[in-house]
C-alpha cells in the first residue's frame, strides 16, 4: 500500500454500450438444453447489451474499446497525442469480426488509431481484474515518474461465451451456466498526476491466490464453434474465496495502523457477477470488518456481468446519472479468475464522464 504526494487521479472516464438490448427471457428461450431455467431469479440480471454482428457496426471487442477510448478522450483535457501510455485489458480479443487476436497488442493498434503516437503500449490480460490491473500499473508508472498520464481501456464482446453456453448447457449446474449472465460493453479511463485531495487514487492493492486459478477457464469450445467459459461456481464463490478480500484489505490497512471504518468510504463497487453475489460479498465484508458496508453501487440488473469493465461501468453510469455523489470516497473491490482480489480506494470529484 503506497500513499504519497506523487499519486495519481482519475481524470476522465468513457464508456460505450451497444444499443441492442437482449432481455433475459429472450436469452433463455435460446438455451435449448435447459429452456425452463429461471436465470433472472438466480442472477438478478434482467437484460444485457449485445453486440451488432454487422462489420459496419464496429462492435467487436476492438471496435467497442475504440469507441470507449474516444468517449474518454472527449471528456479529458488531454488529446490522444498527449498520452504517455495506452493499456488495453480486454479478455475477449475479437478484431476484424471473428478473429481472436494474440498479437499485435490491442493497445498498440488503439494507440495508432487514436493518434497516441508517442504512447508506450501493451495489453494486460487478467480476467475480470484487467481494468483494475491496468489502473494499478499506470498509477505506479505515474508515481515512479516514468509517465505523466495514460489511458486504460477495455472492450468486451462477452456475450460470445453466452452464445456458446446457450447452445451447449444442459442444466443450471453446467460449468457454462455463469456465461449466461454476461453483457457487452466497453470502458476507458484516463489517469494523470493528482493535484489536490479532491481527486486522488489513495491506493490500488491487488493479490492473486493461485491455488484457485483453475476454477474458471476460458478457451474455445471443443463441442461447437465458439469460445467458452467454464466456471466451478460452487468453489469460486465459496465463503473462503469471498473472505480473501476483507482478510487482505484489512491486513493492508492494519500495516498503516488503520481500519476499514477509518477509511470513510461513501460507496463500494463490487464486481458485477449478479445481485446475489454482490449482496453476499457485502455481507461477508460487513461481518469480517465488523462494520456496516457503505452504499453499494450496481448496474448488474441492467447490463449483466460485463467482465473487466464492470467497476468502471458502474462508476460511469452512476456519476453520469447523478446517483453517485461527487466529492465522495469510492472503494472498488475486484473478484476475478486467478483468483484476484484487492481494493482500490479513490476520491472522485471532478472526473469528466
Amino acid at each position, binding site marked *: 500500500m*503506497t500513499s504519497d504526494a506523487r499519486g495519481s487521479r482519475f481524470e476522465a472516464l468513457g464508456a460505450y454500450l451497444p444499443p441492442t438490448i437482449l432481455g433475459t427471457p429472450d436469452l433463455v428461450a435460446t438455451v435449448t438444453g435447459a429452456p425452463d431455467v429461471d436465470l433472472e431469479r438466480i442472477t438478478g440480471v434482467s437484460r444485457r447489451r449485445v453486440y451488432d454482428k454487422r462489420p459496419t457496426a464496429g462492435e467487436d471487442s476492438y471496435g467497442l474499446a475504440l469507441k470507449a477510448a474516444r468517449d474518454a478522450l472527449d471528456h479529458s483535457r488531454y488529446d490522444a497525442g498527449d498520452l504517455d501510455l495506452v493499456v488495453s485489458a480486454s*479478455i*475477449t480479443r*475479437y478484431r476484424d*469480426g*471473428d*478473429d*481472436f*487476436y*494474440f*498479437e*499485435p*497488442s490491442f*493497445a*498498440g*493498434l488503439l494507440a*495508432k488509431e487514436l493518434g497516441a*503516437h508517442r*504512447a*508506450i*503500449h*501493451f*495489453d*494486460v*490480460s*487478467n*480476467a475480470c*481484474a484487467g481494468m483494475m490491473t491496468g489502473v494499478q*500499473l499506470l498509477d*505506479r508508472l505515474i508515481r*515512479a515518474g*516514468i509517465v505523466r498520464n495514460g489511458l486504460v481501456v477495455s472492450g468486451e464482446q462477452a456475450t460470445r461465451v453466452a452464445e456458446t453456453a446457450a447452445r451447449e448447457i444442459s442444466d443450471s449446474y453446467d460449468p457454462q451456466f455463469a456465461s449466461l449472465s454476461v453483457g457487452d460493453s466497453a470502458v476507458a479511463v484516463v489517469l494523470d498526476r493528482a493535484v489536490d485531495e479532491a481527486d486522488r487514487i489513495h491506493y490500488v492493492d*491487488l*493479490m*492473486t*491466490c*493461485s*491455488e484457485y*486459478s*483453475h476454477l*474458471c477457464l*476460458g*478457451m*474455445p*469450445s*471443443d463441442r*461447437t*464453434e*465458439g*469460445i467458452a467459459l467454464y466456471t466451478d461456481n460452487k468453489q469460486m464463490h465459496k465463503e*473462503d474465496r469471498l*473472505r*480473501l478480500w476483507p*482478510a*487482505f484489505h484489512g*491486513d493492508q490497512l492494519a500495516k498503516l495502523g488503520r481500519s476499514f471504518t477509518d477509511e470513510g468510504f461513501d460507496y463500494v463497487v463490487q464486481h458485477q457477477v449478479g445481485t446475489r453475489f454482490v449482496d453476499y460479498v457485502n455481507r461477508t465484508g460487513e461481518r469480517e470488518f465488523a462494520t456496516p458496508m457503505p452504499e453499494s453501487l450496481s448496474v448488474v440488473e441492467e447490463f449483466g456481468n460485463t467482465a473487466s469493465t464492470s467497476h468502471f461501468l458502474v462508476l460511469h453510469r452512476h456519476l453520469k446519472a447523478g446517483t453517485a455523489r461527487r466529492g465522495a470516497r469510492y472503494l472498488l473491490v475486484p473478484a476475478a*479468475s*486467478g*483468483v*484476484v482480489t484487492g481494493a482500490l480506494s479513490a476520491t472522485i470529484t471532478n472526473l469528466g464522464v
Partner: protein
Amino acid sequence: MTTVITAAATVAAPADGPAAAVLLAGRASRECLAEARLSPDAVGLLINVGVYREHNTFEPAVAALVQKEAGINLDYLADPVPGAAFSFDLMNGACGVLNAVQVAQAMLATGSTERVLITAADVHPGGRAALDPHYPYADLGAALLLERSAGAEGGFGPVRTAGSTEPSAVAGYLPTAGMRAGGRSMITVRREAGFADQLLDLAAATAAEYARAEGLDLDRTLLVTSRPTADFAQRLAARLGLPASAALAPDAPGPGAGLPHTAAPILGYLEAVAEGLPAGVDQLLFVAAGAGPSAACVSYRPLDR
C-alpha cells in the same frame, strides 16, 4: 537505486510430448528461485509475457496458472504472507519482456514489491510447434527474476519504446469463423512480405535513438536482439554501422526448434553472459521488435563485470 537481474533460466519443450506454456514458465520460475536461493514467497509480482499458449486459453491470466505451478501465494487465508503476490499477463508480442522490465522498474521504485518474476513462454496451442509447418516459433519457456540494487551503478537503464503509423505486417490470431470444434489447437501466424524490413527499420531507429538519448557507446555494447528472422541480429548490426559480432540473437535449443519468440531476450541474456562479455564490452542493449509494429530498447550493465 537500479533494477538488476538476480537470476534467469530457460526451459526447452519436452522431446516426447506436448508442451504447455504454464509448465515451461513454471519450471523456469522454479529454476530462477533455486538459483537465487529464494523461497516462492520472495516473489511479490509475477508478469507473464507469453503470447501463444496451450488451448488458446484466454482466462484466467496464464500468469495465475504459472504462479500456482511455481507455488507462489497459493492461498492467503491459509498462509497470509506479508508480500502476498499478484500476477497478470502483459502482452505486446516480441517486446513483452522489455515492457515488463519497465513495469517492474515502476513497481520496485515505488516499493510496491521487493522482487518481480517475468516469465516468457510460448507454445503452439496444439502443444507441438513442429507439427504445424506454418507456425514459425519454438515451444520454449524462460524466466527472469528482478530486484532492486542499492547502488546507483549497473543494472537496467530506462526502457524506451516505439510504435509506427504503418499497419502491422505481423499478426497472430485464431480465426474463430470456420474453426468448428477445433479452436483449441489451431493458430494463424501471418507474416506479410516485407515484415522483416518493417521490424528492422523500427528496431534500428529505436536503438539509434536510444544510444543517442542515453549517451551509449555502441562500440562498447553488445546488442541482444529478438529474432523475428534468422539473420535479424546481423542485419541490425549492419544498419547501425557495427560489425556482425556486435549483435547476438539467440537460437532456441534443439534442432529445427523454430524461432524463439517472447523468451528471446532472456535466452539472449543467458547466452551473452555465459562466457563473460567479450573484451571491450561492458554493457548489453536489449532490442526487441515485433507485431504492431512495436519496438523496445533497454540497456543493461551486469553488476559483477
